[in-house]
Structures are given as C-alpha cells and as structure tokens.
C-alpha cells in the first residue's frame, strides 16, 4: 500500500491559502501586543526589555519568546521600520499586518514538521486492543490538529503564535516516544517553558515521566541512572541559563517574575473559561434568584460583580469564596492522581494521557484560566484520541465544547460565518473520519457516556443559534452576559464530562 492521502503538506498549502485570505480579518489587541514586543526587542537594549512601560502591553512572556520576537524584528526592519518604534502605538500599516500575519503562518511550519514526525513515528498498523495508534489514524489526527479551528481562530484571526509553540510541544512529546531521544524531549519542553510559561501546567507530567523513564532504571525505581540525571540536569541548566542568564547577571529575575505571574487577577477571566469555576459561578447566579425563598443569606457586596465584563475579583453572593490556595491544591490533587499511574507504567501512551490530564486539571481548577488554554488539553488529547472508540467517546464532547467556547473571542459580524462554518466543517469532517478510523475497544464501552455525548453535541446547535441570532433579536444589546454565560456553562459541562470520561478510560485501559 502506498502513501496515505492527503499528505500533511497538501493540507498545509490549502490551509495557508485560507489563512492568507484572512489577513484583513479582525485582529485583537494581541496584534498590537506583539507589534510592541517587536519594537521593544528591536530598539531597546536587553536589560530594558522587562522594564519598558511605554505601551500598556508590556513584555510578559519568558525570554525565549523575547528572543523570538527579536529575530523576527531583524526581518521586520526590512519590511517597514516604522513598526519597530516603541512609541508608535497602535501602528498597523498594511506592511505591518502582512508581515505579522505572515510570521504566524511561517512559524507554524514547526507544527507541520512536528506532526509529520509524529505520523512517521507511528506504526503501520495499530497494536492489538487499541494500545497504539496506527499510521492512518495518526495521519488523520495530525491533520485535525493542523486544521484545528482553535488555532485558526486564535492565531490567524485573533492573533497569537500558538501554532509554533504547540509545534514545539508536539515535537517534544514525539521525542519522548523513543528511549534514545528522551533527553531531547525534556530539553525541548524546557525551551517551550522559556517561551510561554502557560506550559507549566503540563510540567508535572514531564517531571514524572522523565524521572521514571529516564532517571530511574526501568527495572526498579530504587536504582538511579546517575549519568542520565547529570545529562538532564546539565541540559536543563543550560536551557534555563541561556534564557534567564543574561537577565540574572543584572539581577532582573524578580522583575521578570513579577511580569510573568501577575497574582492580582481574579478567579475567573472577564469571560468565564468553561471550567469548574464557571459552573460554580453559574450555580451562584441561579442561587441569587432563589436564595430568598430558601432563606439563604446574600452577600450584598457581591451582587454588582462578575458577569458584567470587568476583570477583577470574583465575589460570590451565596456560595463561599474561592481562594487561590484552594485552586492550587485542587489542581495539584487532580494532577497527582493520573500521574501516580504514569509513574507506575511509564509508557508513551500513558505519558501523553498524563500530559492531557494535567492540562485538564489545571484548566478546570486553575486560577484565572483563559479560554484559549483549552488547546492545552485538546492538542495532546488528539494524539491519542484514536486509540480506540472509548478514547474517542471521551474526546468528542471536548472537541465540541472546547471550540464552541472560543467563539466569544470573535464578535464582529464579518468573522461570524468564518468561525462558525469553519468549526462546524471541522467537527463534521473529523468526527466522521475519526469514527471510521477508531478501532473497537477491547473493553465494553460506557453506554451512558455515549448517549451523553450524542445528546450534548446535539444541544450545541440551538445554543449557537440562540447566542448568535435569537438573543440579539429578542433583547438587542441588553443582557449581553446571558449568551456568554450560556456558552461557557454549556462548554464547561462538555469539558468536565470529557474529563470524567477520560479519567475512567485512562484508569480502566
């Protein structure tokens, strides 16, 4: 049998054409953020990067991302030097737009490369009982990631560089597949951490996996492989040294950390990411209405907060408040449970599942989670969703919920058809293809869970119609929080459902 069609390259070319056509589309403030970083890294000396406050969008990504911006600025100065002036706020000449949008497409090639490596490293045919994903299925999963509506909405319309960074993540995951490249897997992940610190959410899985599979002997956990420890320690020190060293020499580490971790933010983002706290807030809102009848006390100060679209402390009127400590403890707890199993059985499939579950736990219980972070779950999950039908069953609600929850990122009428039609296109195509490709499970399926996922996907249609059309006709501009609240509560049910389902599958497979 010959190659599998279509190839990743063919899909990437067609997708690139669509992405270029999207150049004039809506772009969020992130576009100006990245332009400002281009300007800062290009025109200021290194030690002023994390101190500059000319724009309100100060540099708050780790140093590798700053270096990345500096490299791009070397090309940018040939395109339009005016975009590299720090004081040139809100500058968006067409050259600037073309340049910045093109850099997103070009840097995404790393993702294409990583996905190709992933496909190449998959075996021709799947292992018995769905333990391994076959090459055909891997190709389908890789194309689904490449064409992900999440990346299209966030990177190519809203504007960010996730494609490149998820490329690095997948590269690092795939390097973990082979014993001989385990070290490089760790180092690639360290480099990724130095680009965007949000990947810290996934770090526990890496820590456990590398500790067990690289630093300890495969036969006994009490025999330490010292040479590997030294190699890993030296490598990690070098990576972090290259990133933070220059700043450490000038004693700027504390300043960088204050930029990277602004602890003053609230529990929920202005728009609730679809996690446990969104459900918690929703229950609180409902309780406000029925509390007088139940005789529950209302906290007066809280009634004016949340849902009004302000970034700030979330106060609950009926339910007890949530502290960052609670979030942290819950996150770690739900990360530790699957990682214990990874520690016992450090296979690559368990590693990817562990990464996915770490993403899940931090997305669901984290403090001030942004809805874009759902990609931290969807992308690693896609790599193993085709192991068998049970995995696919858990993946389905996530695919729907995760992408629908991104819709509020784009709110202009011109982009509405793009985000909805593209997402529906992707969902139909890949849920149909995955359904044909996923092998039967070796164990019985969860009957109830399958019914839940079908019902859940069906509900998304009236929801999208209500949020985008009916609400506007009924209420005009009033009660704008309602569609947002429905979207995030709905998506939260899907994400939580998918998480529970995946936990069950993970522990029973």
């Amino acid at each position, binding site marked *: *049998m*010959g*190659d*599998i*069609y*279509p*190839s990743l390259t*063919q*899909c990437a*070319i*067609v997708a690139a*054409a*669509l992405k*270029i*056509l*999207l*150049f*004039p*589309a809506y772009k969020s403030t992130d576009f100006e953020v990245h332009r400002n970083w281009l300007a800062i890294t290009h025109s200021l000396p290194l030690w002023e990067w994390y101190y500059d406050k000319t724009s309100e969008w100060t540099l708050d990504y780790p140093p590798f991302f700053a270096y990345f911006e500096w490299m791009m600025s070397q090309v940018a100065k040939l395109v339009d030097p005016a975009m590299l002036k720090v004081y040139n706020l809100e500058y968006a000449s067409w050259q600037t737009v073309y340049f910045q949008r093109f850099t997103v497409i070009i840097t995404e090639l790393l993702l294409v490369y990583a996905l190709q490596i992933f496909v190449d490293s998959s075996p021709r045919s799947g292992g018995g009982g769905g333990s391994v994903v076959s*090459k*055909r*299925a891997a*190709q*389908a999963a890789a*194309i689904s990631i490449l064409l992900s509506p999440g990346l299209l909405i966030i990177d190519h319309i809203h504007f960010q560089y996730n494609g490149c960074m998820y490329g690095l993540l997948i590269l690092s995951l795939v390097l973990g597949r082979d014993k001989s490249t385990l070290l490089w897997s760790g180092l690639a992940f360290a480099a990724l951490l130095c680009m965007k610190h949000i990947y810290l959410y996934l770090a526990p899985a890496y820590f456990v996996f590398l500790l067990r599979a690289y630093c300890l002997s495969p036969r006994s956990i009490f025999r330490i492989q010292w040479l590997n420890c030294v190699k890993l320690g030296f490598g990690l020190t070098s990576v972090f040294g290259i990133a933070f060293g220059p700043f450490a020499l000038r004693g700027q580490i504390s300043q960088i950390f204050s930029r990277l971790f602004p602890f003053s933010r609230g529990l929920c983002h202005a728009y609730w990411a679809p996690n446990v706290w969104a459900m918690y807030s929703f229950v609180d809102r409902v309780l406000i209405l029925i509390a007088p009848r139940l005789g529950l006390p209302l906290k007066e100060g809280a009634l004016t907060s949340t849902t009004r679209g302000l970034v700030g402390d979330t106060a609950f009127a009926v339910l007890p408040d949530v502290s960052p400590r609670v979030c942290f403890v819950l996150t770690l707890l739900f990360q530790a449970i699957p990682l214990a199993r990874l520690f016992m059985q450090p296979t690559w499939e368990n590693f990817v599942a562990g990464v996915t579950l770490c993403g899940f736990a931090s997305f669901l219980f984290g403090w001030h989670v942004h809805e874009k972070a759902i990609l931290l779950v969807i992308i690693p999950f896609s790599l193993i969703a085709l192991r068998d039908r049970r995995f696919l069953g858990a993946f389905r609600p996530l695919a729907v919920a995760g992408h629908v929850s991104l819709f509020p990122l784009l709110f202009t*009428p*011109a982009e509405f*058809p*793009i985000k909805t*039609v*593209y997402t*529906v*296109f992707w969902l*139909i*195509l*890949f849920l*149909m*293809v995955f359904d*044909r*490709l996923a092998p039967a499970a070796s164990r019985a399926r969860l009957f109830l869970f399958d019914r839940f996922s079908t019902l859940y996907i069906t509900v998304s249609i009236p929801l999208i119609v209500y949020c985008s059309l009916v609400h506007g006709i009924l209420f005009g501009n009033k009660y704008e929080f309602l569609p947002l609240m429905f979207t995030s509560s709905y998506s939260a049910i899907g994400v939580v459902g998918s998480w529970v389902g995946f936990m069950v599958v993970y522990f029973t497979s």
Partner: protein
Amino acid sequence: MAGPSPSPHKPRRKAKRAVNAASNLANITALSDVNPVETLVRAPSFPLSALLWPARGFVTEWEVLPLILMGVGLFRWAAGLWGYSGFQKPPMFGDYEAQRHWMEITTQLPISQWYFHDLQWWGLDYPPLTAYHSWLCGKIGSLINPSWFALFSSRGLHDANLKVFMRATVLVSEYLIYIPAVVVFTRRFSRLNGVSTWSSAVALVAILMQPATILIDHVHFQYNTVMLGLVVASMSSLLAGRNLWACVFFVAALGFKQMALYYSFSIFSYLLAICVFPRINISRFVAIAATTAISFALLILPIVVGTLHDVKRGIDARPDLDGPRPPLPLFPQLANYLDTEAFYYPVVEQLVQIVHRIFPFARGLFEDKVANFWCALNVIVKVKKYPAPLLQRASLLATLASILPPNLVLFLRPRKHLLPLAFAATAWGFFLFSYQVHEKSVLLPLMPMTLMLAGNHGLSKQIRAWVGFANILGCWTMFPLLKRVDLAMPYTVLTLLWAYLLGLPPTSISVYAPEETKALSQWVTIFLHAPFYLAMALWHVLELNVVPPADKPDLWTVANVGIGAVGFGLCYIWCLGKLVVDSEIIPKSWFSKKTKLKSQ
C-alpha cells in the same frame, strides 16, 4: 484524513483472483481494499484528488457534499474580507456602489422611475430581473439599517456592516442559484458520461473553486453567478430533457444580465435542432416558442403593471423634466405611429428606455482594455479612427463568422454531451469579436469550459491542461482590473491555489508529462501553452519592477491584452476543434489523419 480502513469482514474474492492470475496481474490483490471502481487509479494525480482521496469509499455524494459546500463557502467569505471595487475611491466609486445604488433606487422610487432616475450616477442599466433582485436585497437590508439605502444620502456609503450585508447578498444569491445549479449539472453530466461519483465530486470542487468567479463576484463585487447559475440551470434542464424549463431559466438569465446573450445562439441551435431531428416536431417547437414568450412577458409584467399604476396615480417617470415629452431614445420614428397621449404610451416609452439602457449602442467598439480581438488589433492598427457604423458592421460579421461553425455543428448533432463545448466556443466567439466587451465578460466562456471537468475524461491531463490554461489566462487578464483596487493579494492566492489543486503551472507541470498513447497531442499542447505561461510570469515580474516609459503608461496593460487575446483565440480554436471531433460530424477515419494535431 486517511481513507476508510479495510473492512475485516470482506469476503475473499477467489474467483477474481483466478482471473487476475490468468492475466498475469497477480499484484492487483494489493489493491483489494480499495473501491473496485477506482482500482485503476492507484495514487492521486493532482492535489485536489489527493484531498478528496479518502472520500472514495463513500457510498453517496451526500456525505461529502455538505463539506464541499462549506469549504468553498469559507474561501468565498474569506476572500470577501478584502476590499471591493471603488472602495474609498470618490467621486464615482465602483461596481459595489452601482449595485448598492440600485438597491437604493428600487426601494425608494416608484417602479416607473427606476430606469430614468439620475442616469449620471450609476443609472440602472441591467435588465428587470436585476432590478427586482436589487429591490429584494434592498428591502431586506433596510430592515437591518434603513440608512444604508436612503435616497441620495446613502451614495458612496462605506459602512463596515453594509459591506458585510452586501457580501452576504452575493453569497446567498450564489448559494440559492449558481451552486445548486452546478451541483445538479455536475451530477447529470457525469452520469451522462459515465463518470464515477467520486470523480464528479472532484470536478465539482474544481468548478466551484474557479478563481475568476470568486474574484469578480466575491472580491471585486458583482452578481454574475446569478446569471451564470441560471444558464447552468438551463443547460442542466436540457440534459434532463426538460426543454421548457431550459427556456424559462434562460429567459431568467437574460433578464438578469444581458450578457447571457453570448449563449443564446447555442441554446437556440440546440432547441431548434431537437425540433427538427430526427423528425420535424411542430408541437415541441410551438411549446418552446410559447414558453419563451410567456417567460419574457412575465419578466416585464411588474414593470408594465407598475408603470400603468404609476400613471394612474399621477406619478411621472421623469419628475425632473418640464415641458413637452422628449422623443424616444431609440427608434424615434416609432412615435409617428403611436399616439403619445394613449394609455399605453408610457409603457412603450418605459420598454424602449429599458432597451436603450441595456444596449448602449452609442458607445465605442470597446471601452477599456480588454483582451479581445479588437483591442488587440488596436495595438497594431488604430481601429478607432474608422467610422463607428463600419466598425459595428465588421464586428457583427466577425462575431457571426466565429459563432456560426460551433452552432452549425450543434444544430446538426444536437447531443447533450456537446453542450458545454458548444456553449464555450460560442461564448469565446462573442467575447473575442463582439461589440462593447468588458474584461469581466471572460467569465462567460470560462463557465461552460470549466464545466467540462465533469465530463468524459474531464479530469484527464489534456482537458485539465486546456481548462486550466483558459482559467489562469482569464484571471491574468483581469489582473489590471483587480490591481487598480489593490486586490493583487487575493488574486495571487486564489489563482495559485486553483492551479495547485489541479496540478497546473506555475505550481506543477504534471499535466504536461508525456503519456504513452497521446504523446503527439501532449507535445502540441506544451508547445502552445508554454510560451503563454512564460509570458505571464515574465509580465508579472516586469509589471512589478519596471515602470513603463512616460509616453506609454499603459504598456503593461496593452501587453496583457495582446497576449490574452491570442491565448483566448487558441481556446476558441481548441473548443471548436474538440467540438468537431467529439460530435463525430466528420468521419473518424478522415479526421484521425488530419486533425490529430488539434486534439487527441
């Protein structure tokens, strides 16, 4: 999206194996997991077929069709995010303003004034169906925001939401007319030619991704696909044998945009022929004539009734005029036979005005630079120095001479599978030689030519090479038009994407790879196409980097027109040649010696 996994329950076909073994094709069993219909094709030969490769196992087209429609819709809408003709280009703006203005006048003025209102500002000069369509769009738009179509004050409006609305009207009109028509046509035409469902799906995507229509309708802004869609619906009705519906659709196409006249000779020849062959069928002829006449009557009925109604209410078609009635713009002698005070006179005046607006006889042989014969000839001989009547007559004769052969063939051999070819050859004839051609009119010959992809061997190298050549050349001749409004980027992306999907130059030369059986015709095609592709590439390089000399500011456009006209001439000859060959009007033994060069 890898293909469907081989079913584990497939019964072993021992009998077939035996046959294969007998014919020394033992290795064919390696393909046993592929749909037997497609076993001849082992690997996709161009990227579009690779993209649809997994769909080969699908039983019906209904599994892929929704995805295809969503996919091509995304590209259309994304292309629409770019600017449109006349964007922020006062004083007159462009086609976008014309269409918006028609929505303004049709919704704000009594029907009798539509064709008379302030003709200097984009006066209505399309047939009535366009006016009704504008009225409908304008009514819907006014529900959303009445200021978009307020009389006078909305002129040159560039509201961002208005743009979204206008783009949506193009897309919705296309999805209601052009796309269903093309889907049905592709299905019928493929079945007629015995093409598999999967190949037909590939052809459908290729037709719907045709860059020229997307660029003109969804980017530059117009509603050509409505007219083209009605023509495709008419052709599709002919395929199904529903000749009367074909008449209705064709009259609707003519009533939407007079350009549909390019096809009128072909449809006339075909309909006449089926009334004559195999035996003369008077009742069919009468039915066709009556349906056509009734359709025309229905088309102008709202205008006629509206005018009479307005007269009754005392509304003048020309409130700005005082004093005596002006003479009729055309046929002034007609007034001698008519009573200008009779009740029917305003209707006559209205209809004459419509004809006058639709057919601008008073304009020159050609307006801008267009890649047809006259404009190209003008480079060598200054055509415009000759008197207009002479040029009109020359143009009429040349057009007739060019369209006569294809229509004669179609008349003598009224076969359904010849329709796209005959339509294409006739439209090329009109485009090349007729009067007052616009560069956008190239869409008309391109449409039936591209439909050939759904036909017999439609995806073969030979047909892809020629259809691709015509389309890419067509887009290229529209580049100056698009460049004027800064649309070089969507032009580049959409044209290259289509070339890539179909494996055409400049992305690939695989369509010209020699085949064993047709080596000679392959070489002829290369010999004909290569100079054009090289010239187009070179032209783009020059146009981008070299400023034309001061005394010849239009140098690049003129070069574009000259090369384009010659290339289109080749397309005309190819369509005509293929029509002659496919119609088998010339005995095969004779042609195989003489016309082998033209087409295989």
